[in-house]
C-alpha cells in the first residue's frame, strides 16, 4: 500500500507551494549535497513542467536550497539565493521545456562538483513530496527519496554500492 502512515496524509511539513515542484525538488538537491559532502559548483537543468513553471513554484530556490544541504521543511529554502552567495556556491541554470524520452515531466539533471569529486545525477519529483534518483554517473538506479527519508544515510549507502564505488 502506497499510503500507510497517518503522516503520509497529514504531512509532510514543507515549504510551499507545491509538493511536486518544491518539496520533492529540495530532496533531489539534498541528495547530491549529501553525496558530495559539499557542493562548490553545479549546473542545474530543469526539464518539462519544472522548466516552464519553476519561478512560480520556487523550484529554483528549492534545488539550490537542497544543494546547500537544506531539507524540504527548512524555511531558509526561501532565501536560497542569498545563502548560495554567502557560501560561494557557483551555479548555472539551464531550461528545456521538452521532456527527455521516457522521463517524468518533473525531471532535473544535476552536474555537480566539490573540491575533490564530481557527480552527475538525474532525478524526478513525482508528487506528494516524494522524489527519486534514477541515474547517477551514467548508471541507472532507482532510489526513492520519500517524505521522511534520511537522505544523508541513503546517499552514503548508495555511494558504497557496486557501480558507484
Amino acid at each position: 500500500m502506497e499510503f500507510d502512515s497517518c503522516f503520509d496524509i497529514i504531512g509532510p511539513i514543507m515549504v510551499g507551494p507545491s509538493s511536486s515542484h518544491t518539496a520533492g525538488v529540495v530532496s533531489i538537491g539534498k541528495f547530491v549535497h549529501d553525496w558530495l559532502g559539499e557542493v562548490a559548483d553545479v549546473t542545474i537543468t530543469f526539464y518539462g513542467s519544472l522548466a516552464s513553471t519553476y519561478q512560480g513554484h520556487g523550484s529554483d530556490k528549492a534545488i539550490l536550497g537542497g544543494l546547500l544541504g537544506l531539507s524540504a521543511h527548512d524555511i531558509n529554502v526561501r532565501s536560497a539565493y542569498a545563502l548560495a552567495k554567502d557560501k560561494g556556491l557557483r551555479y548555472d541554470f539551464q531550461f528545456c521545456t521538452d521532456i527527455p524520452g521516457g522521463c517524468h515531466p518533473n525531471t532535473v539533471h544535476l552536474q555537480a562538483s566539490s573540491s575533490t569529486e564530481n557527480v552527475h545525477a538525474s532525478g524526478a519529483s513525482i508528487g506528494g513530496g516524494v522524489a527519486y534518483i534514477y541515474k547517477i554517473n551514467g548508471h541507472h538506479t532507482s532510489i526513492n527519496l520519500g517524505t521522511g527519508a534520511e537522505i544523508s544515510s541513503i546517499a552514503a549507502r548508495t555511494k558504497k554500492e557496486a557501480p558507484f564505488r
Partner: protein
Amino acid sequence: MKDTIESIVQECMAQDVSIGEWMLRREVDRSGSSREQIFGRMQERLHVMKQAVRDGLSDITETESRLSGGDACRMHQYNQNTAPLSGPVISTAMTAAMATSESNAKMGLIVATPTAGSAGILPGVMVSLQDNRGVDDDTLTMGLFAASAIGYVFANHAFISGAAGGCQAEIGSATAMAAGTITELQQGTPEQAAHATAMAMKSLLGLVCDPVAGLVEVPCVKRNVIGTSIAFSAADMALAGITSRIPCDEVIQTMHTIGRDMPGSLKETAEGGLAQTPTGKEAARRLYQRPCTL
C-alpha cells in the same frame, strides 16, 4: 485487505473508540513507536498549521506571480468590522484557510493535508473550532488523526492529488476529511462522521484541476476557502441525523471512476478549464516565455 470507511466505522463501534483513536492505535501498531511519540508528532503538525495561519494573516504582500496574496488580511478586516453573512464559525475558517493557502503560495511553511494545494482547509476548520468553540489542542490533535484515517481511505481507494484525479481528488478529499473531522470533534458518532464525509465529497465530485499558469494560486486559494464552508454544511447535516443515501465508500469509488475518466487536460496540466480562459492564458504568457536554452 485495504481498510474502507465501512470497516473502520465497524471497528470503531466494536471497540467503542473514535475514528481518531482508531488511527492513533493503528499507527502505534504499524510503526512500533510509542503512543506519546506519535501524538507528539501529530501535535507538532497542528502547531505548524496554526503558525502558518498567523503568518498568512499578517502578510499583505502579493505572490511573485501577482496572482494571489493579501486577501486573508482583507477577509480578516471584514470579519472584524461587520457581522459576516456566513457567521463566525465559517468566516473564521474561511479566513484561516485563505491565510494558509496564501502562505503556501509564498513558500511559507505548511503541512500538506493531504497535499500542499489543499493545505488550507483542515487548518481553517481547526483554528475556527478552537477560536469559536474552545476546542483545545489535544482534542484538535485527535481530530487530525481522524482526518488522516479518512484521507488514508481516499488515498488507497481513489486519489489525493490533482494530477492524478482532478481537483475533486485534492480539494474534494481535503473537504471530505474536514467534514468527517468536524463531525467527530462535535461528538458525532463514527457513522455520522462517515455520512458527513460522503456528503462533502458528493458535492465536489467532478471538480477539475485547472490551475492558471500551472501555479497553486488560481483557483486553488479560493477553493480552499470555500471548502471549509462545504465541510461545515456537511457536518451540520450529519449531526442533524441526515444521512448520505449513497454510502461513503461508494462515493469514494465514484470519485475514483470520474478521476480516471477525466481528460489529461483537466488534471493539473493547465491545458483546460480556467487555465485556458483568455485571462488565464494571458497570465501564463506574462509569466512564462521560456524557450529552450540547451
